[in-house]
């Protein structure tokens, strides 16, 4: 099918170039209620995404139009010609400045094989299930429901410049709800784990941690009306906050005016009191669903440092935006690695503070830097004792708080993120319940 589509593209005289991305996906899926399987599913699908490019000139300026269309495997040649013809026609009116298409390379770095390639999908579904339920052993709480997905994805990208990139990767996902009941109402918490290799300790450990957090939430008191407090962010919220720095460092964000960051700029502002951020992007991060040796254009990837000691060193740029900004092409890399900070977790907890463990939905607006979330569980340390709290919200703006942030020395790994386990902002707004 891939070559059939390519031949039809080659027959289109009005286009200047093309890219075809083929994804073959086999999946196995289990849906549990408590410990019982409620449904099983499987899929076997193939998708083709075709981008056509049309180069043209107007008033002495070069432009590259493009349009992307799906080609379904059940389409006959006439249908394929029609959708490609429509995309080619649309491209003539897409007036974007010229950029080159990614060129072919001799080879791509070999990725380590996932353990999932060694046995059948059904074998691994059983192993994942055993790991997930290993610590579901408590009387007052445990896993309420759980969904387990394992996808084998075979990708093949070709383009008109000779790019020919292939990979086979695995994407695992476990989404689970834990509950706990003390004297009041039973409470629940949500967690979703994404991974590309089998690590039973991570799966069972995370379930255990979530059950412990649920137990704390079940006895939590209302969040006090503090108005402002230092807040220690942990777990997914740390990754979400660093997502702001990742987003602002993208050449695409600069070009589209979503970020004003300049190379060499101290991005944390002036008079910095706390830790300075150092962030790199690692395409080969172990057990990440985004680990890859090439990006969506087939550009070969290598690790790259983008922020060092709070100074922006490099933009993350794919072929198009690197050309626009006249910077090095890094390719699109989705894994963040952040250096640890100056203090241990214990040291971060010396002063009165709130330590946030779980939000309803921690939201960071990567454009404005605004963040907020309803507290599902946090611990409040008033200088003497620590109590679990729930309800109300935490909010602030990264731009206004980042001049004094502290990062833990201790590190964590969560799919596409590896870095400090905790991040502390000093003057965060708290909407308490009492």
């Amino acid at each position: 099918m891939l070559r059939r589509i390519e031949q039809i593209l080659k027959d289109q005289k009005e286009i200047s170039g093309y890219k075809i991305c083929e994804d073959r996906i086999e999946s196995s899926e289990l849906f549990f209620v408590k410990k019982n399987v409620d449904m099983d599913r499987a899929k076997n699908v193939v998708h083709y995404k075709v981008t056509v490019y049309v180069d043209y000139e107007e008033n002495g300026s070069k432009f590259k139009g493009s349009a992307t269309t799906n080609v379904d495997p059940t389409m006959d040649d006439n249908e394929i010609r029609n959708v490609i013809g429509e995309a080619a026609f649309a491209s003539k009116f897409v007036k974007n400045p010229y950029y080159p298409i990614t060129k072919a390379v001799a080879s791509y770095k070999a990725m380590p094989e996932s353990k999932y390639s060694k046995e059948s999908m059904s074998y691994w579904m059983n192993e994942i299930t055993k790991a997930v339920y290993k610590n579901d052993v408590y009387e007052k709480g445990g896993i309420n429901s759980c969904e387990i997905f394992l996808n084998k994805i075979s990708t093949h990208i070709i383009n008109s410049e000779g790019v020919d990139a292939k990979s086979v990767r695995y994407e695992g996902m476990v989404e689970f709800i834990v509950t706990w009941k003390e004297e009041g109402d039973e409470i629940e918490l949500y967690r979703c784990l994404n991974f590309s290799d089998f690590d039973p300790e991570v799966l069972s450990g995370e379930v255990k941690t979530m059950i412990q957090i649920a137990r704390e939430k079940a006895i939590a008191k209302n969040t006090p009306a503090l108005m402002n407090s230092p807040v220690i962010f942990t777990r997914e919220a740390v990754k979400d906050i660093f997502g702001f720095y990742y987003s602002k460092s993208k050449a695409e964000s600069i070009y589209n005016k979503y970020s004003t960051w300049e190379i060499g700029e101290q991005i944390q502002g002036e008079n910095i009191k706390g830790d300075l951020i150092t962030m790199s992007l690692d395409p080969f991060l172990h057990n990440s669903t985004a680990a890859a040796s090439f990006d969506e254009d087939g550009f070969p990837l290598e690790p790259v440092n983008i922020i060092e000691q709070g100074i922006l060193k490099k933009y993350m740029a794919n072929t198009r935006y690197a050309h626009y900004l006249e910077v090095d092409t890094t390719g699109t890399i989705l894994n963040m690695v952040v250096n640890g900070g100056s203090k241990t977790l214990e040291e971060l907890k010396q002063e009165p503070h709130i330590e946030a463990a779980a939000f309803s939905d921690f939201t960071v607006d990567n454009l404005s830097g605004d963040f907020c979330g309803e507290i599902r569980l946090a611990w409040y340390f008033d200088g003497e004792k620590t109590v679990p709290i729930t309800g109300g919200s935490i909010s602030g703006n990264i731009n206004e708080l980042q001049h004094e942030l502290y990062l833990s020395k201790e590190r964590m790994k969560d799919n596409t993120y590896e870095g400090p386990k905790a991040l502390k902002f000093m003057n965060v707004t708290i909407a308490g319940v009492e």
Partner: protein
Amino acid sequence: MKAVMSDFLVSSKPLVRKLIDRLSKTYSYVSVLGTDTKGKSYVVSKTAIEVKDIIFAERGFVVRIHNGVNYSEYSFNEISEEGLDQIVEEINNKIGKVARIIPANSYEVIEEEAIKQSLFGDIEINPEEISSMEIIHNLTEVKDLALQRSELIANVHVVYNSYHISKIYMSGKKDLEQSYFLGEAFISCVARKAEKTKRYFKSLSGNKGYEIVSKLKDMALEIVDQSIALLDAKPAKPGVYDVICAPDITGLIAHEAFGHGVEMDMFVKNRAKGAEYVGKPVASNISTMHDGAVAADHMASYLFDDEGTLGKDTIVIKDGILQTGISDLLSALKLGTVPTGNGRRQSFERKAYARMTNTFFEGGKDKLEDMIASIKQGYLLEGTFSGMEDPKNWGIQCIALLGKEIIDGKLTGKLISPVVMTGYVPDLLKSITMVSETVELGGAGFCGKGYKEYVKVSDGGPYIKAKVRLG
């Protein structure tokens, strides 16, 4: 004009029937959902133009079988006469076995009534007959109009998405087909002054064709002005306030506060507090809330859901009393209730869950000006940014783009942003004291179940006056 059914699906029906017949020799229940959704997404901004297929574009099939204990499903997107044997083999080999190996919940075999029905939606202008040149030209005009308004505008995105959805549902007794269009368009404006950057956006959506784009120009300048005004907005001072929720925020509350909480797959999992409150008061007695594919003509209106159940109008809350939940087919089977036509999938590749459709509060008798005049100190909240459900514990998190300050019954012109609304759902719903007359629905965003399974929905209602905690 009437939507035309997908040729591909129509021509596939004999093959699908053969597949059902083959599988029915082994399994006591077999159904097939076939989908063919086409559509284009056009984005025109200050810096780029993009044309691509909509993210919900799909073409494929999902087979559901009763495996002797419960249900199993298999999704595929290649079908041919010569390939039928392989599909049957894959179904026999890959699904339906696990329930015999590990503990499983059992489900009865679905009893279906014989139904043969079809629906072909109606729109004014078929987007498939408008050339990409014209669409890009029209969106560019709107973009240019917005950019000319102020130098504070860093970027403007003008977006038009068209959807042409075709589905068939076939089983032993059912033969259903539907084809209809959806449309959505929005303008998102980014304003910047010194170090501060703010965004404001507004959308149009519905069972519409290309006619929706003609209204964008009327919205453009208001969106630009609001994004610039947001540059001077202050964060909300944490506290409990009297507020008026604009229809989009009323819809956000309906959706997050109560809609997710009455999805009845949550009842099966004992994840919904709502299950304990059926027949009990959960909102003020001037609150009535609906959900249903035929409750309104909007983004989630259809003849049948993704499990072949005909859509309904479900009254979830009547005069403040919780009446019932909304249900997919399997949850209804488990609970012994009647399915409400809310079994929906992100695509043929995903499981069906109990999902909202068009969810909204009914209108009341109050005038907006009287509602504003009744507030001594509070805010008029508008612009949906995001929300998150908490069906088990009835917490609520809704984020609005802005709040307009009201002092002594008058709008002062001052804004707060961002606005985080939190609280306990019944407290919020019982605090509703005034409800305006006109109901407005919107549906340009997506609804997820947790952080996945995205489907198109609409939600809305009238302006409501309530008491909420802001942060």
